[in-house]
């Protein structure tokens, strides 16, 4: 492989990315950053947690992405009575023509490329944890057997920020397995007008399936190939350490309001997300700016805040922004 080949790969990556983004934007109004965030997660082999109030288009966004990518899509509506078997599948007794009975695993909806876990915080923690192995190991263990999941395997979970009856908080271990946590904001007046135009007429816009599994895997490989210089990697490490209250690099806000800082998965997310962002910025290396661009999405759900933060209404975003402001960049 030569430098020219690398250049072509990068070009192809950017072109594919642009196609997907444009296609999704035909249905989804606004949320440009969230579309990029979801695509970044997909290409960095991560999973994404979408947070937003009901009716804001979370499910629609995921459905559109599945349509565009020509991937096997399944949707799981999380409810309090949902059982783990309803997600991963169950082993049933089957009988052959000869009358011999045998156990057969019936795969659940998790056996798909794109899994939409809708309102994930409505299910019990037991059911939520059924996703843990699948998200981390890309495999499912049932009936004493391990069933690998087909690649790409991408979980998009949605959750409501509102505290409602019958919801359960996501365990920290579950949260940590999400690569990014994206927040969907309410659309502007102009955005609302466009939504009405697209959804209240006879013909609703339709998307085309632009490419499928192979292209996605190729793009994933390209993203992983981007080199990272040690100073930039050190910067990502310093950012992560600055979220730990006991660290020497911790900021004042961190020391006051954070109970536990980001896990190493957070640092991985910074670098991997930075790689995708570097390619999108037509760079063959990861710059500190790329790390900064993904820091909020990669770290906000990995900070466990203390009671003081809740009492003073200090959010994880505010702490991360403070960390980004105070930790010097490699160029400084």
């Amino acid at each position: 492989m030569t430098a020219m080949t690398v250049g072509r790969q990068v070009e192809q990556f950017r072109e594919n990315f642009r196609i997907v983004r444009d296609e999704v934007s035909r249905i989804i109004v606004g949320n440009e950053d969230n579309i990029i965030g979801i695509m970044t997660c997909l290409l960095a082999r991560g999973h994404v947690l979408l947070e937003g109030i009901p009716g804001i288009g979370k499910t629609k966004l995921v459905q559109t992405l599945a349509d565009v990518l020509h991937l096997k899509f399944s949707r799981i509506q999380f409810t309090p009575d949902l059982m783990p078997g309803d997600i991963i599948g169950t082993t049933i007794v089957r009988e052959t023509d000869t009358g011999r009975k045998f156990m057969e695993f019936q795969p659940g909806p998790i056996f798909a490329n794109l899994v939409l876990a809708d309102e994930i915080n409505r299910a019990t923690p037991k059911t939520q944890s059924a996703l843990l192995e699948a998200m981390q190991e890309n495999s499912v263990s049932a009936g004493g057997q391990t069933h690998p999941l087909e690649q790409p395997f991408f979980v998009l979970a949605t959750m409501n920020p509102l505290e409602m009856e019958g919801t359960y908080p996501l365990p920290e271990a579950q949260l940590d397995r999400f690569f990014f946590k994206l927040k969907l904001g309410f659309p502007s007046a102009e955005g609302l007008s466009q939504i009405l135009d697209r959804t209240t007429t006879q013909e609703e816009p339709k998307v085309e399936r632009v490419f499928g599994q192979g292209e996605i895997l190729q793009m994933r490989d390209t993203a992983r190939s981007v080199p990272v210089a040690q100073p930039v990697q050190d910067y990502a490490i310093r950012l992560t350490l600055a979220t730990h209250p006991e660290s020497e690099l911790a900021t004042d806000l961190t020391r006051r309001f954070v109970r536990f800082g980001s896990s190493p998965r957070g640092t991985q997310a910074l670098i991997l997300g930075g790689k995708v962002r570097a390619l999108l910025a037509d760079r063959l290396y990861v710059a500190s700016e790329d790390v900064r661009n993904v820091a909020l999405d990669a770290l906000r759900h990995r900070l466990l805040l203390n009671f003081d933060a809740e009492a003073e209404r200090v959010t994880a975003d505010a702490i991360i922004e403070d960390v980004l402001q105070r930790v010097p960049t490699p160029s400084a």
Partner: protein
Amino acid sequence: MSDQEVILHALAQVRGRLRLRYAVQDLAVMLGMVAVAFLLWRALRLAGDSAPAVTAAAILTALLLWVGGLFLLLRALLVRRTSLARAAAEADRRAALDDELKTAYWFIVHPMASPWIAAQIEHAARSAGALDVSRLLPLRVEPGTLAASALISVLLLALSFAPPLSPSPQALAQPANALSPAEAKQVQLLRDLAAQLRDDAPAATSVEHALRELQRKDASAEDKQRALAAAREVLEQRNLNAASMREGLYQMAQKLRGNEALQEIAAALEEGDARKAARALQAVDLHGRAAASGADAAAEQKQEKDLQRLLDQAAGRDGKEEPGEASSVAGRETIDRLKQIAEQLDAQQQLNQASQALQQLQLAVAQRSTMSAGRFSQQATQNATPSPNTGQTSMPGGVMFRSAAVAQENRPSVQQEGSKTGAAMGDSQADAPLGSKVAPLAVQLRRESLPNSESDDPQNAAKNWFYVESKEQKSILELRDVQARESFAQAQSGAPEGISVRHRQIVKEYFMHLREAKP
């Protein structure tokens, strides 16, 4: 030239430029420190000795600033690193290359076989080759530095041409002949007066001493002030003596008033013209002798008595000699004494001028000295409280004599009678201990006996008496008590509200309850 060489060459150029900029920056900082030091030095010179505490604080601040600045400069010089990595970071920052050169330099230093790294270095080489180092790191003075330089220059110019806030010690040590023309004229006047004051040795000595101090080169302002004040005090004492002479003449005039033959003398004495009085007395004496054989022996006798009394008083005799024999001798002595008084009064006028000249000189020296304003006012301002004895008030420009005004009043003034201070000094009679009527203690107190004592025994009865207040004494005390209460009540009710202190709380509570009781 390979990609790596292109990058390293560009980074070396950037590093050289950075070093040059740092050198210029350090030079500017050093020049700034020198300029600030010079500025402080000029400010300290301007402040001079007028405010020693401020001067000390300024010196301390300047020293601290210097030490702090020096420390910061040394620290910056020691800590500063102008490596290629630093140059790469600086170039990335200034050319908005998003860590491209820094990453490329790191990959050059830590080589790895990867087509991605090769592609990155190739791309970075193109970026490095396109760098214009002179535009990236221009050698120009920053606007802030320019503004600071301009400000310091303006301040330096202003301080160079600004007049000093206080006279320098050299100016204060100038001799008297370096005074202004008006002051020199006053000094000359003092010299003349000192020559005329040869008869009055203490006054002449003090004025001479003051003049010597003024002309002495090494005399401090304090010494000059002290000498001038001493001379002035002596002259003021002479003024007081002269005033007392005038008052004596006035009193003599009052005593002679009513005697028609001596009216002319009384008028002259009342005017304070002793010379004229002496001439009038001389004329009366001659006329009296010529008319001694004439009629109206009774009137002549009265006139003779008055004149004799005047003569005795003027000559300081007790008046027990025979009138006929002594009048001629006493008359001559009195005339001589009046002439002497006239001369003394003339001299007093000159002394008064000298006193004023001394005051002007004192003022000039004080203004040029480093004395504080409060202390100067203490020295320059005279005591304006009238003397309890004479009623005279020392004022700038002379002494206000109140003797004539006091003498014309029907009843004695406070100054004449004496204040409490005067009473304590024995100048006036103090209040009686009990009541205005002075009576012996035995009269004031009534002797009483115990009512149920064994009065049979006369010896014991002598032991059973004691002194009690008399009725008069008791009533006086009660009267004073009532008067004191009345005056206290008046003083209390002197407030704008017209309510005594005793009743204020009651009134206040009444209105507060009234307000609280409202629904």
